[in-house]
């Protein structure tokens, strides 16, 4: 066995050269790429942490914003409620004022209508009175004295059927009713007119409600011959006219 110092020296050089070669071409590049990857991982993790922190901050901001919006919403709701209350009060007040105005207008209108109606009523009453008066006057005997009413009573009795006339005149308590006490002249004239009817001795009563006229009354009926009766009849006729005319 021999020891070759040249080979020994060359092997030292060879190993040192290999050391340099592997350092340059193997260990450093691989270590660098591993370090870069680790740095990338760390950077990615840092970025993820930063993104997480940012998301947390954004979430906090969003939560604060939500709270602010909720507060603003509550404020708006309360403001809207108070505005609504005020608006309602204003509207109620306006409605009441409008109602008062309408009521006042209605009252005025009602007053005007009532006044107009009263005027119409008065005018109609006047017209009615005129009509009644005209009709009553037209129905009055001519002349409208006790003798005239006696003659109209006689004519009325004569126009009755005989049986009814006889029943009327043959009834008990046959009497004449005048509106006022007859003077002697009027009494004489009246009896002379009624003699043909056998009433010349019939008693004469006074009934002021007749206004004017001479009526025959007995237990079997009555012959109305007075201004009061004419007015009543005219009124009923006018009522019937109104009922049928309207």
């Amino acid at each position: 066995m021999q020891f070759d110092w040249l080979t020994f020296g060359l092997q030292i050089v060879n190993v040192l050269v290999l050391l340099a070669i592997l350092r340059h071409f193997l260990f450093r590049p691989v270590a660098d790429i591993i370090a870069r990857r680790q740095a990338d991982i760390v950077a990615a993790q840092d970025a993820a942490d930063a993104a997480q922190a940012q998301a947390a901050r954004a979430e906090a901001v969003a939560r604060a914003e939500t709270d602010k919006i909720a507060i603003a919403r509550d404020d708006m709701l309360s403001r809207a409620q108070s505005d609504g209350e005020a608006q309602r009060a204003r509207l109620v007040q306006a409605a009441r004022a409008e109602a008062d105005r309408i009521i006042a207008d209605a009252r005025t209108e009602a007053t005007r209508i009532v006044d107009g109606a009263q005027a119409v009523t008065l005018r109609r009453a006047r017209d009615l009175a005129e009509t009644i008066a005209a009709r009553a006057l037209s129905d009055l005997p001519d002349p409208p004295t006790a003798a005239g009413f006696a003659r109209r009573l006689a004519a009325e009795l004569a126009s009755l059927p005989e049986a009814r006339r006889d029943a009327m005149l043959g009834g008990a308590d046959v009497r004449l009713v005048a509106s006022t006490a007859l003077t002697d002249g009027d009494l004489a004239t009246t009896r002379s007119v009624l003699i043909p009817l056998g009433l010349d001795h019939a008693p004469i009563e006074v009934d002021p409600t007749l206004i004017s006229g001479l009526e025959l009354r007995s237990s079997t009926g009555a012959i109305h011959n007075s201004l009061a009766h004419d007015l009543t009849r005219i009124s009923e006729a006018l009522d019937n006219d109104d009922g049928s005319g309207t």
Partner: protein
Amino acid sequence: MTDSPLDLTYAFNLGPFAISWVVVVTWGILLLLGLGSFAMTRRLALRPGKGQAVLELVVGAIDDQIRATIPGDPARFRTLIGTLFLFILTANWSSLVPGIEPPTAHLETDAALALIVFAATLGYGIRAQGVLGYLKSFTRPSWVMIPLNLVEQITRTFSLMIRLFGNVMSGVFVIGIILSLAGLLVPIPLMALDLLTGAVQAYIFAILALVFIASAVEDSAPQEKDPPS
């Protein structure tokens, strides 16, 4: 190969110097590792392919071993330990190529490696503790131990050299003997075992170098573990 592995054979003469086959094979290993490293690290990417993954696995495993022995950044020792491991592994496995005798089966190569480890231990120790500090480390645990500690520096370097030489040379020697006595296929199981032995010896050499360096750079120098032979 039936020649004695203890003898050097020479490939050619370079002027007055005779270049042995050991040196030539070592150049081939340099070329192989250099070109292989260059080819495999040309296109490193953050998203690694299969080849890059293997490289990162190897470098990561070396870093893990360094970190397990010496706390701190493994980059300080990565090149030396990694180069020793890869060179010895490749040299040991070069015996698979017919006609090639592993450089580590010769004492010159193992002595060169051991000397480099010795120099590195010295250099790292002085860099870490200073000259005086490193010298003081020989007084631990007592100044009485100075001669023994000094002898230990020499003997452990020799043991490193002889361990690698003995294991690899014996493997080559046994295979050569069996090949000369038996048929062509008989040594194959022994060659497979030689592969395992080569890998284990590369690992042991690198780990022991790391332990020696660790004992030099750390204040409380760890005792050398009883290395497997």
